[in-house]
């Protein structure tokens, strides 16, 4: 993204880069290039007022968010994707954590208002909480085991590699602890205590992730300036 590109175009290009970031390589390259060509065509076709075109491009990007997400899910049906996601679990764990957050908030609201008589909505939301939480834990655990069994050298260089590994491991820990906290937070006894501890770990992991990601960003900027 360069200076001088209208904000609407930058938004559309940023969004396509974001939702294709971990998509299968060829599909991602094609989709990004296609949107870039479309945005450029719309800017070229615009009359003198580029500001209006910029707003229209942003509108086209925003109105298509749902379809973009559905397309992204559909490309995951290609062969080999399940294995890829176990090797790089951040996308699936992030998506599940994004789904779990409003589910947990909705569940808490329903529990407050149900006054001891759980309705059908609460049963449904609780099932979703259990499903998302259990899926997060299962994927995180499988990915962790795979990582321990198959240790491979990282081509990004030792310093970058350790920072990336730390960031990925912390993200894994954050997702797993969030899943555990959501799953067992109302269970009495040891599991309830474990959920409380997991929630504390989640908070600490988020802080640590921000710190490590910040260090990585500084390091990348420094490397770019010096090469």
């Amino acid at each position, binding site marked *: 993204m360069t200076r001088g590109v209208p904000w609407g175009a930058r938004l559309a290009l940023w969004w396509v880069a974001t939702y294709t970031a971990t998509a299968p390589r060829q599909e991602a390259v094609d989709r990004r290039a296609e949107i*870039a*060509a*479309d945005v450029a*065509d*719309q800017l070229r076709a615009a009359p003198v007022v580029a500001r209006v075109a910029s707003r229209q491009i942003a509108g086209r990007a*925003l*109105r*298509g968010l749902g379809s*973009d997400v559905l*397309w992204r899910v559909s490309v995951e049906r290609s062969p080999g994707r399940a294995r890829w996601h176990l090797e790089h679990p951040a996308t699936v764990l992030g998506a599940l954590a994004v789904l779990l957050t409003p589910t947990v908030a909705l569940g808490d609201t329903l529990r407050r208002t149900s006054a001891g008589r759980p309705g059908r909505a609460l049963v449904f939301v609780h099932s979703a909480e259990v499903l998302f939480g259990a899926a997060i834990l299962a994927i995180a655990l499988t990915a962790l085991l795979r990582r321990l069994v198959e240790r491979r050298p990282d081509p990004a260089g030792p310093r970058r590699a350790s920072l990336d590994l730390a960031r990925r491991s912390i993200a894994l820990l954050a997702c797993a602890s969030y899943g555990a906290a959501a799953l067992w937070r109302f269970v009495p006894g040891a599991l309830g205590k474990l959920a409380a501890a997991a929630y504390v770990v989640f908070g600490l992991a988020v802080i640590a992730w921000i710190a490590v990601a910040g260090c990585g960003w500084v390091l990348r900027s420094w490397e770019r300036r010096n090469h």
Partner: protein
Amino acid sequence: MLELAVERAPERVYGFALAQALAERDGHTRLVAHGTLYKALDRMRRAGLLTAEWEDPGVAAEEGRPRRRVYQVTAEGRRALVEDPAPATRPGWGPAPA
């Protein structure tokens, strides 16, 4: 969408031109969303109704713009349009044509 691509044959169509043609046909001032348009094109390509290829980089460079992905309706796409025009022409983001 397929109908518009057939109308423009043998000329090959690309995303933005299709979005403009659709808005013109339906009398809309807004162009169809990126996600809706390219998801529909991708679905039709996977179904074998369209073929897609990237245009010659020289042409794009000459005009000072990024390369376009151009689409052409296949024989199967034409057949689908003749046999059952409603689902093939329905763009997927508006009401079905009456």
